[in-house]
């Protein structure tokens, strides 16, 4: 987190479609990534209000390597604090979620209310002369809300959230968040992926019909679609869904029903820099919070939601569809997980990973990307390169 972080040495290829494989493997990149990305000028989603709907509900998370937690206050406000007592630093939250009336540090019984104020500290008359209880509230982070989803950033310079995401990103995101943010949590799937965090978020529009055999077997044709990319590395896919009426490969085709009322778009997948994926496939509303565990290993929490207005039939459908199609065991997604770890193995070899599909000029960055191109990932790599201060080779 300091300015003294050593600048790692990595020369970036001249061509915009070439990524040095070493970028997935060099452990010395991680401190710099923490400083310039995770603790830098980026927004990171931490919690949706639906995950902590009642006063006292809390959820633990991490920002880079820093433990934090979100808590629903008595006043209805959601706040995000560093998970540390302001006295000697003991962590205050020890479970991934729960409900507390107040936050007590067990070490010296310092007591904080849900708004983060220090309300009790035993024997304080013997404290150092400069002690003032008002200065020892829990450390907060800069926060913004979008349709019930709360984001944090460590930097004062990060642009306002909507400006940072851009309209092409936040408009589809609002639809993943139910159109009005009135979501209900229906559960989590959590998994460790054995790869560098950048391999996880390097998934593309080219692979989908090729890797996922379920699509072919189910005679599931991709409809018309678009990819929108932004200069700061966010990527948003939208496509129609054309699911055949008769799915002969499955005994129970109802798992693939699309009951939603919006007929225009059945599928939205969004990759927010640095490492969050949002998706709405058919009737599944999904946020994938991702937590890099250093340079190797990424813990992904798939959070699934229903909408407050769902009737019982729709709720049951969302539950069985979400449980079976996505996530670390899902019919249409398990292969992605397999590729993450295989990319990680293969990238221990020298040279560059070279993007092809959709690249019209190797020497220029393009923001025009077709539905099944992989070139949509290149603006993100360029944003990463700049954040990390790597020079592009001249030859």
């Amino acid at each position, binding site marked *: 987190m300091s300015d003294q972080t050593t600048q790692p040495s990595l020369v970036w290829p001249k061509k915009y479609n070439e990524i040095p494989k070493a970028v997935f493997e060099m452990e010395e990149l991680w401190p710099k990534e923490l400083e310039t990305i995770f603790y830098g000028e980026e927004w990171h989603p931490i919690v949706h209000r639906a995950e902590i709907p009642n006063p006292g509900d809390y959820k633990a998370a991490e920002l880079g390597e820093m433990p934090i937690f979100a808590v629903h206050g008595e006043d209805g406000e959601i706040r995000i604090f560093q998970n540390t007592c302001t006295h000697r630093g003991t962590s205050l939250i020890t479970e991934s979620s729960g409900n507390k009336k107040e936050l007590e540090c067990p070490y010296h019984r310092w007591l904080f209310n849900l708004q983060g104020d220090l309300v009790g500290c035993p024997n304080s008359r013997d404290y150092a002369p400069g002690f003032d209880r008002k200065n020892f509230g829990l450390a907060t982070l800069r926060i913004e809300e979008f349709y019930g989803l709360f984001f944090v950033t460590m930097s004062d310079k990060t642009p306002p959230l909507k400006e940072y995401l851009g309209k092409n990103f936040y408009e589809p995101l609002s639809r993943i968040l139910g159109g009005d943010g009135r979501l209900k949590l229906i559960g989590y799937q959590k998994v460790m992926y054995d790869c560098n965090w950048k391999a996880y978020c390097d998934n593309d529009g080219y692979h989908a019909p090729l890797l996922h055999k379920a699509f072919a077997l189910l005679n599931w044709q991709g409809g018309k679609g678009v990819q929108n990319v932004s200069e700061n590395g966010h990527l948003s896919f939208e496509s129609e869904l054309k699911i055949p009426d008769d799915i002969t490969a*499955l005994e129970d085709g109802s*798992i693939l029903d699309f009951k939603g009322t919006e007929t225009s778009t059945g599928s939205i997948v969004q990759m927010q820099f640095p490492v969050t994926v949002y998706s709405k496939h058919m009737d599944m509303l999904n946020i994938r919070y991702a937590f890099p565990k250093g340079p190797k290993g990424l813990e992904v929490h798939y959070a699934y939601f229903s909408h407050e207005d769902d009737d019982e039939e729709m709720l049951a459908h969302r539950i069985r569809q979400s449980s079976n199609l996505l996530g670390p*065991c899902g019919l249409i997604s*398990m292969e992605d997980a397999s590729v993450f*770890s295989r990319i990680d193995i293969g990238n221990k070899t020298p040279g560059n990973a070279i993007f092809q599909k959709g690249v019209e000029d190797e020497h220029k960055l393009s923001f025009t990307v077709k539905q099944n191109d992989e070139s949509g990932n290149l603006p993100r790599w360029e944003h990463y390169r700049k954040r990390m201060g790597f020079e592009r080779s001249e030859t």
Partner: protein
Amino acid sequence: MSNLSNEAVSAVENLNRDYISALDTMDMAGWLSCFNQQGSYTFIAEENVRRGLPIAFMLDDCYERLQDRVTQVVDIQIDSTEHYQTRHFTQLMSITEQEKGVIQASFNFSVYYTQKDTNHTKILCVGRYEDTIMIEEGKAQFKHRKAITDTNVLPRYIAYPV
């Protein structure tokens, strides 16, 4: 367990043995044959169960879904999985007869996996089964098997049922 005949306890133990043996030999047809025609299977994180959240890792809530689970493993994802050998270890923790021929049982489980590319062995997940078992003409089959994993964060993606 006192109200149960030795034959009934044996039938349940044999069913569980057939089940874990099928998984450890990747015999998905054998796995399917452990369920009756009303059978269903759930693999879910303990955290979700504790919080009353219904999302599972696998939710095969009817016999057709069980058949489709077999299709998914055997036909659809066969070439993209990094395969692994499992060893399931189970212990019967409780068994009661709910009504004639309907048994509630609970087993603890631990599942080790040996990844075929690295040959390293790790723990896949640890938890408990909660079962409803029907015994008809001396043969036991699952009406429902619910695998609840204490390992809320899976160490890798999971291709086969637990």
